[in-house]
């Protein structure tokens, strides 16, 4: 199917972004309205496309639009063309829907900021890039969006870059993302060298004939790309610092959409991973490691946004794990992605609302007892909380339990290990989220009298309410008659009939619930029974201290990459000067020296010249005489 309207999805926010950036201060008065309308209209177009799609039979639902021939050299032919299928439409609606809500929220949240127009320009740029990412029909088109969102994320993290630490955080995010991008570009190169094409359709067609080695190489490099963008182990360190950006950014980019691009990439490349079991296993392992890693960091963070960021990392770990489980897990990974988009965005907006009321204080130890002052925030945040820890019938219960279940049933020791990790992660999630809830909303007030907590304006709480509705209902809707699974079936391979289930779904649910209750109980015991100190206690175990420092991820990166890199750069600088330029200068000095030494003979005394001539003549004669003799 050909469609002509896909491009407007992207062009609208892009155009709006360009207008806002180019008109400068003149647009300050109406910039935010234009900026909000653009994704809003894109959302409507998305809905229209969905309606069209629903009206067609299952096989004909994907639509494409070719814009122009982008790069064409020899056999390397890449068109700028878009493709909207069942997988992309989920993302399109998530991006534009949640995006529009967050734009609305930002109107109020950023109303005091001098540069609100610029903020909306960046947000629009992000929406456009993210849409391009999910709509591109080849890896190279995806790559444009992929780096575009990285750029937008960089700009937004560094939005308040007059603070040096924020600017550093932005740089760190961009560079970590670049390492991931390196993976993606390598994947494209391998794909082109072995299959002669970079489009999804082309590679899917040829994947069957490719050797497992090639596919594994592509898979691993794609995984590197995903770890960079989705803050997965070992490229996870930037996400915590990325919270330097304004809170709506954290909600949109670093929770709901951009960081889930890695999951999209892996699910989109299902045909590669299905044919490369080793790469697929690596994906699952990375997912499992990260979900534990993030959860552990989450237990120790006092900064509400960083705690939520750690939680995001962990939840994306679940998605990656799901995507790494093959055909059985793709649909659930996407489902968790969508539900997570609702509840995590809602919670971040809630956190923003709390900060809004508390003079931008982020330390949860300085909150306490806020439920009386911010009732709507408390309610929406609470619903998100119930969703993330997986209490039925909230969204997280459906999506997360399914991933755990699939992990257990993936067979063998691998299944047991991955499943246990996921289960344990669920317990820790319950623990740290309960901790966040209690520290923020329950207990007694720990803020000083300067702060005047108040509920946020309607523009802020309305999006929160809508997102909360999503967190309550989405899980139920998606699983109703396996609707999402069936919807996605044409894109991802249909899951084969489950072979000998290790654990029944009910057993998994009960196990998970029990662990969740344990986690909640533990947190309640620790933080409700005795008052929380305003200063973080220093006499804690070494484990807590390590967790507070993000499990030493920064120390590791600095010790292994940054400092040797700096030293290398410095050493090369010196070596360049000393050795290469030194050699050149040496030649120059040698020439000069020779000239100077020989110049000494030019003493200006005629008689000495005459003597040299004489000696020369005698020497010459003597030589001739000696030779002829």
């Amino acid at each position, binding site marked *: 199917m050909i469609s002509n309207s896909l491009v407007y999805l992207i062009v609208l926010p892009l155009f709006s972004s360009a207008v806002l950036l180019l008109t400068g201060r003149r647009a300050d008065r109406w910039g935010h309205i234009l900026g909000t309308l653009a994704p809003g209209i894109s959302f409507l177009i998305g809905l229209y496309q969905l309606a069209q799609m629903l009206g067609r039979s299952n096989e004909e639902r994907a639509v494409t639009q070719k814009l122009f021939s982008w790069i064409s050299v020899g056999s390397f032919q890449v068109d700028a063309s878009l493709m909207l299928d069942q997988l992309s439409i989920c993302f399109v609606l998530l991006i534009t829907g949640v995006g529009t809500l967050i734009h609305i929220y930002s109107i109020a949240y950023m109303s005091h900021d001098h540069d609100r127009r610029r903020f909306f320009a960046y947000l629009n740029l992000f929406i456009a890039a993210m849409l391009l990412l999910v709509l591109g029909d080849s890896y190279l088109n995806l790559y444009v969006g992929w780096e575009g969102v990285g750029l937008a994320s960089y700009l937004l993290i560094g939005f308040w870059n007059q603070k040096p630490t924020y600017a550093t955080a932005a740089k760190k995010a961009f560079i970590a993302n670049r390492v991931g991008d390196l993976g993606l570009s390598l994947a494209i190169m391998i794909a082109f060298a072995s299959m002669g094409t970079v489009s999804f359709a082309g590679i899917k067609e040829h994947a069957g004939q490719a050797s497992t080695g090639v596919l594994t190489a592509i898979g691993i490099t794609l995984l590197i790309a995903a770890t960079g963008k989705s803050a997965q182990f070992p490229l996870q360190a930037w996400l915590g610092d990325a919270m330097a950006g304004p809170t709506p950014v954290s909600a949109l980019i670093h929770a709901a959409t951009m960081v889930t691009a890695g999951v999209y990439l892996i699910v989109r490349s299902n045909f590669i991973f299905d044919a490369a079991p080793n790469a697929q296993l690596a994906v699952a392992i990375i997912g499992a490691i990260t979900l534990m890693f993030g959860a552990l960091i989450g237990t120790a963070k006092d900064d509400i946004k960083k705690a939520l960021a750690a939680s995001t990392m962990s939840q994306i770990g679940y998605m990656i794990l799901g995507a790494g489980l093959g055909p059985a897990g793709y649909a659930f990974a996407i489902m968790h992605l969508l539900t997570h988009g609702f509840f995590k965005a809602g919670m971040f907006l809630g956190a923003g609302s709390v900060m809004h009321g508390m003079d931008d204080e982020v330390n949860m130890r300085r909150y306490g007892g806020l439920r009386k002052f911010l009732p709507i925030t408390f309610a929406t945040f609470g619903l998100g909380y119930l969703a993330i820890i997986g209490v039925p019938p909230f969204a997280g219960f459906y999506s997360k339990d399914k991933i755990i279940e699939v992990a257990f049933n993936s067979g063998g020791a691998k299944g047991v290990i991955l499943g246990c990790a996921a289960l344990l992660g669920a317990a820790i999630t319950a623990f740290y989220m309960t901790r966040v809830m209690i520290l923020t909303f329950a207990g007694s007030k720990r803020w000083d009298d300067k702060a005047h907590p108040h509920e946020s304006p309607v523009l802020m709480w309305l999006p929160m309410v809508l997102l909360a509705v999503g967190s309550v209902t989405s899980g139920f809707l998606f699983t109703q008659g396996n609707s999402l699974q069936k919807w996605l079936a044409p894109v991802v391979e249909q899951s084969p009939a489950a072979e000998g289930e290790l654990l029944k779904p009910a057993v998994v649910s009960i196990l998970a619930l029990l662990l969740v209750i344990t986690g909640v109980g533990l947190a309640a015991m620790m933080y409700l029974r005795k008052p929380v100190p305003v200063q973080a206690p220093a006499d804690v175990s070494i484990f807590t201290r390590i967790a507070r420092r993000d499990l030493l991820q920064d120390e590791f990166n600095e010790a292994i990459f940054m400092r040797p890199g700096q030293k290398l750069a410095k050493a090369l600088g010196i070596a360049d000067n000393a050795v290469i330029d030194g050699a050149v200068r040496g030649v120059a000095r040698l020439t000069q020296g020779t000239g100077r030494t020989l110049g000494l003979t030019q003493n200006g005394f005629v008689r000495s010249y005459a003597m040299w001539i*004489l000696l020369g003549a005698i020497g010459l004669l003597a030589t001739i005489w000696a030779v002829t003799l």
Partner: protein
Amino acid sequence: MNPENYLYVSALLFSIGAVGVVVRRNAIVVFMCVELMLNAANLAFVTFARINGNLDGQVIAFFTMVVAACEVVVGLAIIVTIYRSRRSASVDEASLLKR
């Protein structure tokens, strides 16, 4: 008389001239030593002409004389000018051309 003896005289004259050029300071004397060397060469040329029985050497001797005459004109003029400006004809003092 053995023509070789003329060659010995010529070599002797040339050596005297060369040593004179190197050791003496007075420009006039240096100049005269140069003339001595030229004439030593002339003597040798004429001798060779005699030995070989052709006129080539004599022709060259005439050329040398012409060149020497020109040289005397230019050289003496320079020496006189230097003497006028410096009140001295020592070649060592005229070392302005060194670097």
